[in-house]
């Protein structure tokens, strides 16, 4: 396990900033203890988010024996891009820039891996541009996943009910669907 290089940090933050606003700063600054801050660590090709003290403790464990620690944010692909995992939802949801709420009848289709159609949309953030990262919530404000907006909010209002509004990127159904591969390295 090691720290991230400059390039890796930039790639990671760019991806996270797709979904979050300015409050992303809180990710690296929030901590109750002034001596203990949150850090990102790379293990294999996966990036984990954890407290500094935990990262320091983990140095006692041989690299081959260490499976995971902290919260997995995602992984770096072989081409150097960053792919966010659904496990990062808890990290980004509180800081989300754009949100989309879906109706109860749209929850199941979304959690089975489908995109969000206009008919399942309850409401969405104002001024939502096209191809922006959004966090998907149900009507009780529980985050269900994240995706990329297919249309801007102005266009979305005029569309027919079957038109896709949000392309799915991750949903909590993956915890079951991807159970075998989600936590293996």
């Amino acid at each position, binding site marked *: 396990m*090691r*720290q*991230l*290089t*400059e390039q890796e*940090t*930039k790639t990671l*933050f*760019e991806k996270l*900033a*797709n979904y979050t606003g*300015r409050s*992303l*700063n809180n990710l*690296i*600054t929030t901590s109750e203890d002034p001596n203990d*801050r949150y*850090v990102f660590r790379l293990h294999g090709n996966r990036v984990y988010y954890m407290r500094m003290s935990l990262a320091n403790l983990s140095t006692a464990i041989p690299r081959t024996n260490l499976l995971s620690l902290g919260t997995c944010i995602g992984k770096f692909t072989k081409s150097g891009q960053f792919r966010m995992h659904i496990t990062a939802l808890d990290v980004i949801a509180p800081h989300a820039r754009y949100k989309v709420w879906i109706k109860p009848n749209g929850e199941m289709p979304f959690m089975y891996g489908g995109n969000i159609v206009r008919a399942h949309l309850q409401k969405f953030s104002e*001024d939502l*541009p*096209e*191809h*922006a990262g959004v966090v998907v919530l149900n009507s009780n404000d529980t985050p269900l996943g994240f995706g990329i907006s297919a249309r*801007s909010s*102005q266009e979305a209002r005029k569309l027919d009910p079957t038109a896709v509004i949000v392309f799915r990127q991750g949903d909590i159904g993956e915890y079951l669907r991807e159970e075998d591969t989600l936590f293996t390295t």
Partner: protein
Amino acid sequence: MAAKPGSAKPKASGSKDSNKSKPISSASKVSKKGGKRPPPQEVKAKARTESTLLKKTKKREYTEAELDLPKLNAITPVGVVKPKGKKKGKVFVDDDEGMATILAMVNAEKEGQIESKLQRARQLEEIREAKKKETEARQAKKKNKLEEAKDSIRQKRKRKGDSSQDKADTAAAKPNESSAKSKGKRKSVSFA
């Protein structure tokens, strides 16, 4: 005949050789007499592993620039310039400030992108609205024109009616129509 003497000659020569061999042996004796000279020493060719041969004569070393190699043949590709005296390996970012600066940069970039996206969306929306208004205006104009045409036709008809006869005539026109209808009926049964 000619062959015979030829064949006989070698024999004779062979006998002569045997005679001559003696002087040769004597000559060898002579050489032995001259043995006072130092014995001939074998001159060996120097082995390749000889230390003197192994010593490299200093050859001129050419720099890469002098060789005038094509760029692709060079060891380091173009554009990859290895900085000298710099530490090898990755540069990690683990301090708070470093991360914060990168984050600020990324944030600013993203916000710029989003802003431009929103602006573009607004512009497009304006254009769309303008187009919609234009088409609506055009349609209204068309409708108006049609209405005018209809009105004019109606008025023409009225004027025709006014110019030919009074209102009574127009009233009389109705019975005419009915008569026309009856005519039609009559036509239908005309063959009977």
